[in-house]
Each structure stands twice: as structure tokens, then as C-alpha cells.
């Protein structure tokens, strides 16, 4: 069990702290800050006592927007990440475990999805979906954006999961479970999945990063969600509102920073997970460090002796 948990170290601590801070910020600050859509404030105020991060062109409080936007982005990110994870699990685990023709077909689909460049596909699908009649406000909701990003972003994870599932499938404990009389579904869920937990978590995190960045990109291109505030729509507002041109850095810098910080924090958590999946990544550098220190200590002793 313990080997399935990431080892606590500086990188992980910074990563978890960053993600936790951002999450708390996204969940708590909207309750305290003013309505992010309120235009009752003067426009383009620089950061100051009343508005810690200033205001936008419309007089929206940037801090409030940032908090709500972070929440929106997290929502899109987590949802998109989950959608792509579910698909990746379906394609990856099924292909990996069942093998044979099922594997061939599922992997072909996965590989096709993989080599077809993502964003253009997302753009095409988003353009079609968003203009399809009958969807109403759903067409350009953050839910739809998350779905589109999730549906197009699972292939990479599926490949990773499939490789791992394949290797687990040939593990003797899976054969042993079959001999013991366990059913296929139970073998997948009880014998295989738990050992994939670090990997699945890592894939989910990649999915979240991918979706958050994807949402930002789509929003920048004007294909993002409307009606809800995300970091992407904030950046889009700032960009079209010429925040750069007017020197309103406080409008433009924070959303980008939060995206980068969130991505970096999640990546740091993934480092730790990578080290669980492949312990050599942690052990090898650590071993080198210890060896070096010890050698230095021996040399010192000899020198002093």
C-alpha cells in the first residue's frame, strides 16, 4: 500500500500546496469577494486597498473574477479530465486486458485519435457543436467545452494505461486470481485497477492540465464557454479589452499566472506519482547523492586521520 503512495518530498509538498491553495482560493474567495460581474466599480483601477487586484475595463473586481474564474477553470479541468480518464480507462484497460482483436481495434481507434492533432479537431468539433441547433445555452457552456476537450484528449492516457494493463495482465497474480475462480470484471476492478492507481491519478492530472490549458486556448480563439467565467474567458476579455495595450497588467497577468501555477503544481504532484510508477526515478538520483555524500565523508575522515 505504502509503495502506491507518493513519497513526501519538497517537490510534492510545493505541488500539493500550490494546488491546494488555488483550490481553496477558488472555493472560498468567491464567497467573500464581490459579485465578479458587478460593474459598480470604476474601470481599470490599478491594484489598491479597495480592489487588491484592481478592476477590469467594465469595473469588475479582478480578484473576484480571478476566484470565480479559477473555480470555473477547475470545474472544466476536472470534468474534462474525468471524461477523458473514463474514456482512457475504457479503451486502455479493455484493450490491454482483453487483448487480441479487441485490442487491435481499440488501439487503432486510439492511435488514430492520437495522431489526429487535438486542437484543430477540438476547434472543428467546437465550431460544429456550438452552431448546432437545438442545444441552446448548452452549446457554449463550460460543460460542453469540458466534454469536447475530454472526448478529444483521452488517447494519450489510453496508450499509457493499456501498456500497463497489458503488463499487469500477464502478471502471475492475475492468472492466480483466475485460477482461484475470480470473474473478469472483478479481476479488472480488484486485482488490476488498484495497482494502476498512481498511474490513473497521474493520467487524471494530465487530463486536468490538458483541459485547463485547452479551455484557455479555446477561449482565446473565441470558442470558449460563454456565460460562465473561467481563467480562459478572463484572459480572452483582457486580451480583447487590450489589457496589454493599456498597461493593465493586473488584469492580464493574474489569470495566466494561476494557469501556470496550477499546471506547475499539478505537474509537481505528477513527478511524485511518476516516481511511484517508476521508483528508479526517485531512487537513482537519491542513490547518487548519498553515494557522493558518503564518499566525501570518507575522504574527509581519511584526510583528518
Amino acid at each position, binding site marked *: 500500500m505504502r509503495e502506491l503512495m507518493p513519497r513526501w518530498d519538497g517537490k510534492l509538498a510545493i505541488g500539493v500546496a500550490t494546488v491546494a491553495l488555488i483550490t481553496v482560493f477558488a472555493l472560498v474567495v468567491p464567497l467573500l469577494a464581490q459579485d465578479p460581474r458587478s460593474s459598480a466599480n470604476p474601470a481599470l483601477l490599478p491594484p489598491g486597498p479597495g480592489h487588491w487586484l484592481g478592476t477590469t*475595463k*467594465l469595473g469588475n473586481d479582478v480578484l473576484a473574477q480571478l476566484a470565480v474564474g479559477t473555480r470555473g477553470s477547475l470545474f472544466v479541468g476536472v470534468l474534462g479530465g474525468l471524461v477523458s480518464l473514463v474514456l482512457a480507462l475504457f479503451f486502455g484497460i479493455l484493450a490491454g486486458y482483453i487483448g487480441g482483436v479487441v485490442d487491435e481495434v481499440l488501439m487503432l481507434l486510439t492511435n488514430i485519435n492520437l495522431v489526429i492533432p487535438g486542437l484543430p479537431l477540438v476547434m472543428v468539433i467546437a*465550431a460544429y457543436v456550438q*452552431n448546432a441547433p437545438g442545444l441552446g*445555452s448548452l452549446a*457554449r457552456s463550460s460543460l460542453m467545452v469540458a466534454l469536447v476537450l475530454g472526448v478529444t484528449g483521452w488517447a494519450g492516457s489510453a496508450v499509457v494505461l493499456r501498456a500497463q494493463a497489458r503488463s499487469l495482465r500477464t502478471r502471475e497474480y492475475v492468472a492466480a486470481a483466475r485460477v482461484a475462480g475470480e470473474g473478469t470484471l472483478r479481476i479488472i476492478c480488484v486485482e488490476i485497477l488498484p495497482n494502476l492507481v498512481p498511474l490513473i491519478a497521474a493520467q487524471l492530472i494530465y487530463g486536468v492540465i490538458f483541459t485547463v490549458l485547452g479551455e484557455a486556448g479555446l477561449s482565446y480563439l*473565441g470558442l470558449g464557454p460563454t456565460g460562465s467565467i473561467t481563467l480562459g474567458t478572463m484572459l480572452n476579455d483582457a486580451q480583447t*479589452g487590450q489589457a496589454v*495595450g493599456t498597461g493593465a497588467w493586473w488584469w492580464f497577468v493574474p489569470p495566466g499566472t494561476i494557469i501556470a501555477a496550477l499546471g506547475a503544481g499539478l505537474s509537481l504532484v505528477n513527478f511524485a506519482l511518476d516516481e511511484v510508477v517508476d521508483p528508479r526515478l526517485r531512487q537513482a538520483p537519491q542513490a547518487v547523492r548519498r553515494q557522493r555524500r558518503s564518499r566525501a565523508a570518507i575522504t574527509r575522515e581519511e584526510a583528518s586521520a
Partner: protein
Amino acid sequence: MRRALRTTTALITAGALALSGALASCSSSSADRSGVLRVWAGESTPFNDNFNPFSPDAVFATFGAIYEPLFFYNQLSSDPPTGMIGQSFEINGDGTVITVKIKPDLQWSDGQPLTADDVAFTFGYGPNKSPQMVSATAPDATTVVLTYNAPQFTAESLILGSTTIIPKHVWSSITDYASQTNEKPVGSGPYVLDSFSDAAYTIKANPKFRDGEPAVKEVQYLALDANQSGQDLLTTDKLDWSGQFIANPDSVTAGGRIGTANFQQDPTVIMACSNADLGCKGPQTDPAVRQAINLLLDRDEIAKKAFAGLTAKGNPAFLLLPRDQQWLADPATGESPQSPNIAAAQKVLEDAGYAKGSDGIYAKDGVPLDMTIVSPDGWTDYNDADKLISEQAAAAGIRIEARTVSDAEYYTPASTGDYQLMLWGLTQSLVADPYSNYHEYFASSGTAEVGTAPPSGQNFARYSNPEVDAAVTAAAATQDVAAKQAAYATVQQHIAADLPYIPVVVNASQAFFDTKDFTGWPSVEDPYADPLPYLSTASGVVLAHLKPVQK
């Protein structure tokens, strides 16, 4: 960036409603070659190699710089039109025959003579041939007679000011004008095409131009994809002329090189699909709702925050004041309220039978006041205004959801009526006469059932009022000022009450130009043409006026 695309459509409609005017005399060109004038007219990369004056995708220099109409109608003044190809014109008593004298000894840029024959050909060609036209003939080399079966008083500016004249010897062999790209345009304007690439094209002075070569020998048009890029290039001395929205113009003009002008003309409105009889759906079909929205708007805040304070105040009579002062019947319709009056708005609703629900939203017969207002992605000022409108309406108990859509999904639903509210730009009439506004936007001849596009006119609000129709028809058939005033008074009274278009602001149209290297730009003192590079005809007039600064 989308702002750039939007200017394209602004140009297109502006061209269609042009007033006539005579070309201000153009100074004789000096032999000195001076710097190239670099322009961003709002186009994005890559450029279309398309100089077809009939194409919606033609590049900007096509209109004004290369091709010209007969007369130039200066939107900024109430002066009569100035002649370009045309020398003078005359309309007969019942308005069915227009006789145009064109200037003598004109030449196309390929050296062929430009005669009345070309003009007559133009009016009989393609989309110019209106159903009302009987004939277009050229009795002699400088006379053109256009005969119609209905009075054309009010179509004067369209016919004379925004029909680009094309050479017969080129176009007589072209049948499918819509899919033509006309990569080697032969025109009559001050410039001819020099070189084209999909990132930039250059026009150079036309030596065969009737007034001699213009002083600025070369003009280069650039393609940019973002307003920010335009602003950056202005700041860094790379761009000499652009018409774009810059929220803080000081940042560009502070250096002293760039001057700016902002002649507001075009009303920005909340367009409502207002006619339930024609199939419009939603609470906005009730005039009381539209009146309430009109009252609750904080136009001052919208102007300041969404439009950076660069707009002018709108009026429900849809006049360009003070240009059209003589047509204003009731001073009360001379300006829309600038600050909100929520109590009045709510009273209007309550009088009409609405009551506030538990969620704070007014409702009638169980149907809440819940509407959607759309604007295109990236039209920041519109998007921002929508957000403010949504917030202001919510404060008064009306839910208006602000949504953005792609460009294409903005225009098509507008024309087919598949919307509830839209932030929309009307184009101000180019002449000092609101007729074209009333005819285009309010007359029922310009509308259609929801689901189909109007065959002509742009009454996308689906407004239909027999009294307004009768008044517009009456105004069209007369040139008597008093009779027109009476007719317009009727129109103004109805549209100010029914509000199919709720005025918001009169839109800013900022132009930025290099005053250090070029002189002769229009100014408040001498508004000889609107200095926006994307306007047809006017941009050509400005180009012909400019002079490089000698160094």
C-alpha cells in the same frame, strides 16, 4: 481582432448608403517621391486577391482608391455631393429620370477612354440593375440618362454615391460577377494596383487620374489579425493610418506623430425581434418590455466602460445631430435618457400587467422576463455592453443573458429573425436626411417572416406599423421640406414609443493617422471626408487629399 472583421461589414453597408459629393479639388502632384503611406484598414491575414467591387470579400482599396462612384457624399456634412466621375446631375419632377453629366476626357487606368457608355453599362450590369429601372442610356459621350418606373428621390445617394463605375470593355465579357476576383483591376480612381501578396498589397498613384497623380505615390495596405498588433505598430512608427478601436488613444498619440479623429455617426442599438405576428418569440415582442429596457439602461456607464467614453449620445429619432437638426420633430426624442430610471421602468412593466416573482424577476401569465442578448465573439465593446446591459436589467427585475456567438452566427440569425435581442449597429444615412434610416430599418417593405431573410431592406427587427409605412412612402414621393418634416414627425413618434431598436450609443469611429509625415488629414475644422481607411469612397478622397511632408 474581430473588431477588424466588423469594420468590413461597416464598410459594406456604409458604401450602400453613400451620399453624393463632389471631389474636392486635388492639388497637382509634386514630382518628389516621398514615403509610402502604410494603412491598416482592418483586414486580416491572408488578404484575398480580390478587387471585384461586387464582392463582399474585396480588399478595401477597391472602393475609393481604384473604383469610384459618380459623386462623393460626405456623411459629415449636409453640403451637396461633390463630383467625381460625375460633373452634375438632375432629377426630373416626378423623380423617375436622372440625367447625369460626366466630366469630359476621362480615362480608365489602362488608357481607354471613360465615357457615358461605361456609366450606362454599369447601371445595367449585375446587381446594379434594380427592378425599378427602365433603361440606362448614353445619348452622348458625357451624358447618361437613367430612367425608372418609380420616384428615386430617396435612392439618389445609392445610385449616384455608391455605385462604383466599371469599364465596359472589361466587364462586358464577365457574366458571373459574384465569383469574379478581378485581380488586375482597371478603375478610374487616384490609384492603381501595384503589387499584391497575401500579407500586403500596394497601390500606386494613377498617372491617368483626371486630377493628375495624387501626391502620395504609394500606399501599402497591411493585414493584421489583432487590434493589439495595430496599436503596437502605430506606437512603433510602423503604421501611418488605421481605423480601429483603441481604448486609451493617448497611448498612441502621446508621441506626437499620430493624430486622431473620432466622428461618431452610427447608432449602436439593442435590436429586438419585436413582431410576434411575424413569428418573433419572447418577452421582447411586448413594447412595454422594450420601453422598460430603454428606461433602465445606464447609458452613461455603458458609454464609459464598454466604449471607453468615445461614443456620442443616441436618440430614438435616429437622427445624426446636429447634422439633421431640421428633421427633429419633438425635442424630447432628441436624446435617449443617459441615466437609469428603474422606478419608471418597473412602473411601465407593472402597468402592462407584469408582477415581480419570488426570484425578483418580473413575469406575466407565469412567463418570466427572461431573454438572451447576443453579440459576436471578440467585439469587445459589444460584449462588454451586453454584460452591462445584462447586469443593469437584472437590477430592475429583467433577466437578460449575454451570449457571444461567431460572426456567421450573428448575421444569419439577424436576417432570418432567429434571435431575441442583439446588440446591433445601424448605419447612419450618408445624407442629411433620415429617410434611408426609416426606409431601411423601420418600413415593413424591408422585413419578412421569421425564418426568411427580407428580400430588400434591413428591417431585421421585424417592425411593422402601417402608419410608419405610409409616412415613409409619403416622404419618398416628395422633395418638399415641410411635407417631409410632417411625415418624419409621424415616424419619429411611433418608433420612439415602440422601440424596435433601443438606442444605446452612437458608436465611436476612431481613426489614427500620421501627421508628421503626411498632411491634409480631415479635421473637425475641415471635415471634408471621414478619415477612416475602411470607408469606401471617403478613404479614396482622403488619400487624394494627402501630401507628404517635405523633409
